[in-house]
């Protein structure tokens, strides 16, 4: 059986390479956390995997396969049918990623009709991300949502078409601790229910480690260490991983 996602890519902005032949494999149903400091190229990786990096002025070389299907070399219109359908994406901050002028309903409908015919029904979807499905909510403008609601909505967009793999780029960084925990729990549930493979990109090792099956450490554009969370925490090998683990807050016990 094919892996949900397999990639080996390099990415650069102009002449500066920011990802140096970063490779990864995610099996179906697996949750992989990718941790690294700000500026280590995490967001670049997410955009590179979606082949959206050129919109931010970057370029990608290498190979990306989703369920055995090679993405590099696909035309823009072919890529369009991949994005949101094969690869879901949950962006960083609902403040900027939601078009504040549009209604929730419009956003949902548009995301739906990108890959499906007819009118979608969003009750179950919204329920699964613990958002109300009533008219009042649907008629709200994106700018009027709270950050937690916004993030849940973005997750709903990400999983709407039951993608093979979900890329989540710092999905919890804008949230308070309690909401953060709830959203993480939501991801875990969705993973169990739908079997969606997930790539979690985060600087917050501790929070994502709790739900992931494997952790990759990204440092200066390279993956320096990879392994199950337990091993990473107990026996980090790479000096960078060690410093990362050491810097984590410990429970006061």
């Amino acid at each position, binding site marked *: 059986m094919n892996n949900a996602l397999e990639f080996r890519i390099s990415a650069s902005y102009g002449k500066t390479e920011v990802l140096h032949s970063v490779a990864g494999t995610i099996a179906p149903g697996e949750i992989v956390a990718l941790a690294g400091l700000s500026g280590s190229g995490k967001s670049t990786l997410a955009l590179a995997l979606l082949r*959206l990096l050129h919109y*931010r002025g970057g370029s990608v070389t290498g190979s990306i396969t989703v369920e055995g299907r090679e993405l590099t070399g696909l035309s823009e219109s072919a890529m369009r049918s991949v994005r949101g359908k094969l690869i879901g994406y949950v962006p960083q901050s609902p403040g900027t990623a939601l078009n*504040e002028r549009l209604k929730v309903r419009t956003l949902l409908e548009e995301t739906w009709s990108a890959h499906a015919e007819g009118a979608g029904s969003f009750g179950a979807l919204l329920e699964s991300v613990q958002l109300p499905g009533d008219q009042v909510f649907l008629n709200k403008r994106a700018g009027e949502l709270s950050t937690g609601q916004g993030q849940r909505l973005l997750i709903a967009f990400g999983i709407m078409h039951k993608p093979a793999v979900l890329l989540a780029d710092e999905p919890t960084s804008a949230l308070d601790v309690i909401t953060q925990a709830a959203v993480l729990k939501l991801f875990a549930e969705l993973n169990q229910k739908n079997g969606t493979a997930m790539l979690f990109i985060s600087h917050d090792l501790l929070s994502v480690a709790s739900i992931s099956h494997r952790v990759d450490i990204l440092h200066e554009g390279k993956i320096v260490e990879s392994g199950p969370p337990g091993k990473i925490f107990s026996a980090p090998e790479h000096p960078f991983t060690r410093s990362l683990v050491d810097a984590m807050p410990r429970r006061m016990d």
Partner: protein
Amino acid sequence: MRRKLASAILILVALCALFAPAIAPFDYDRQFRESPHAAAGGQFLMGTDNLGRDRFSRLVYATRISIVLAPAAAAVSVLLALMLSRFSSLTTLCLSLPWIFLFIIMRALLPLDTGPFASILLTFALMGVAGWAWPARIFNASIRQIRQSGWLLQARASGMPSRRIALIHVWPHLRAIAVAQFRVLVPAYILSEASLGLIGLGVAEPLPSWGNLLAELQRPQAVSANPWILAPLGLLMLVMICLEEVSA
């Protein structure tokens, strides 16, 4: 309330234009040769011009022409600007070309027996097409900002077709500027039509237009002799303010 009043006025003006033959007491080209430069009042509501044509009737018919064509041309320009604004070099180039020669060339290609109405239709069409660079230059900066936005990336990541993205996501952000540009272009085109008359592309005798009625204002003596010459200016201003109120 104000909005309703403004819409009512606009509808009234539009109705006047639509039913011009019923409202105008005379034909716009009827020459009362015995009463040139007649004062306002009596038989002629706003007096007559140098050939004894009823100013009021001319204004009503002029409204009919200008009020339809100028907004249509402005809409064409704004639409073109939205489509072409990403070509910023082209925009700059078009902003600085001596367009007047394009119009002179167009006039040369046009047969001489083109009727006054066809000629003015073409004039406005040309203005609409040629006038895209101004709004495009304004859109250009906003569009560049939008391109950087997170929501655009999100929309792309969810696989929406770009046409839908433009329509659903981008347009709401450009709407205010587009409407502002539209409102500026309408009177600009109405006025330019008079100057295009100087190269033979404006409205031809005997057809009246707001452009050639407004051009009369350039003769201060004429205005002091018959203040009703100011009427088109007042009406146009009223329409512009109402348009502003309605589209705000």
